């Protein structure tokens, strides 16, 4: 009975710690898996969500078949990597796929509450321009990213989090010699 009480208490404590940790995380779409194939169409499998910063690893072959296979890319939310950056009204939730050469394979704009999001970051052409960009690119509005006037706070936030999140992920998981 005493062991059961200790176990129960430990579980409650773990639950509180987990919940408080989750409370600090920006809540994002809990089921992003349907997007994965659009980011890495040839992927053989994906890891579970974890690590620091939080991410999914992408594999050529299913990791259950070959557990020692190295990842070929990473999928992550910009809100997990840059949690303190905000647009006009909160963060824009981008799901990013990046390969091990620091090349963005695709970006999904999953959610935003920007008043002018409907003509700035919502149109698919906004995220399309990030496909095949390198983390070494400048990500500057009006230069390599098309600027949308009158939505500059939203656009600056979007370009900034995509640049900083991919660079942070690259510095954490990639080798600088492998970057393209």
């Amino acid at each position, binding site marked *: 009975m005493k062991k059961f009480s200790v176990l129960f208490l430990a579980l409650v404590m773990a639950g509180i710690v987990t919940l408080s940790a989750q409370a600090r995380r920006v809540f994002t779409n809990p089921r992003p898996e349907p997007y994965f194939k659009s980011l890495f169409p040839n992927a053989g499998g994906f890891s579970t969500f974890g690590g620091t910063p939080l991410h999914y690893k992408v594999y050529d072959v299913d990791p259950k078949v070959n557990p020692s296979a190295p990842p070929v890319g990473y999928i992550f939310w910009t809100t997990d990597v840059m949690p303190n*950056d*905000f647009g006009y009204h909160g963060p824009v939730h981008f799901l990013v796929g990046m390969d091990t050469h620091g090349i963005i394979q695709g970006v999904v704009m999953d959610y935003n509450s920007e008043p002018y999001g409907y003509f700035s970051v919502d149109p698919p052409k906004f995220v399309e321009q990030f496909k095949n960009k390198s983390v070494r690119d400048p990500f500057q509005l009006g230069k390599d990213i098309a600027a949308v006037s009158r939505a500059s706070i939203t656009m600056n936030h979007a370009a900034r989090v995509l640049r900083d999140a991919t660079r942070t992920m690259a510095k954490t998981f990639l080798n600088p010699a492998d970057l393209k």
Partner: protein
Amino acid sequence: MQPPDPWGFDDAPVETWASILAPQYLDLAILAAFFILALVSFKRKSVPLKFVTFAAAIGYMGFAKSYLISITNIFSVLDWNWPIFRYNLAWYLFFGFTVVSTILWGRLYCGRICAYGALTQTLDAILPAAWRVNVPRPIEKRASLIKFGVLAGVIAYYLVTHNLLIYQYTEPFWMFGMFGTPIMWTLLAILLTATLFVRNLYCRFLCPVGATLGLISYATVFRIKRWSECNTCRLCEKTCQWGAIEGPKILVTECVRCDDCERLYLDTQKCPHWRIIEYNERKLRILPLQPIR
């Protein structure tokens, strides 16, 4: 000697205020210049300068930058959700100016800074006076309460749904972005058509931002002074295009500090206050006081 950065990213490894300010200098400078222009035109009670301010408000604040206080900013206050300060200094200058100027002088923002307000006031000055439909005072007084109902309704809707896109149907400020759906453009066309006949229709009766600033205006420090003659004179009340004067009282929720009444106060030919002083002086000249024996 630090080893070379193997990553070779172009951004500065450590952000400095100089690097943060560099892309914002121009915007900050233009915005500051615009505010100075608006304040000079306000303080000098100059009509030509007021219309120069309107032109700058429509062109720069509206079409170039879309700097307009919106109901979405009230939503931001409600859920304390703000843009990053250091990257958006111009926006904070704009927001701060609006709040501070409202506390100091009242709805100065509505009367001089808001691009939509500037547009409708300019339209009003251009369009023939014969087109105007003067709303009877009792109706005008009741209609001015609608904006508070709109404010309460929109806030309630947002608190329940958290859908801030409701702004598209309750304010026309998106028009300066030139991005709208057919429904939005249709509603805007109806509103602007009605505004051709009823001056400042949206600002006076419908604007939830104006309602909010009107409520803040109860805390206004520097209010318009009134002469004792204002108790009986109705000249300013008749002139006020905002329905903001009721007998001797100025309704702070409606007054946008357009200067129309204040210019009348200064007009020695029209304002009874000066006319009475002049009359008394003249009378004294004609009938000089005699010492009492």
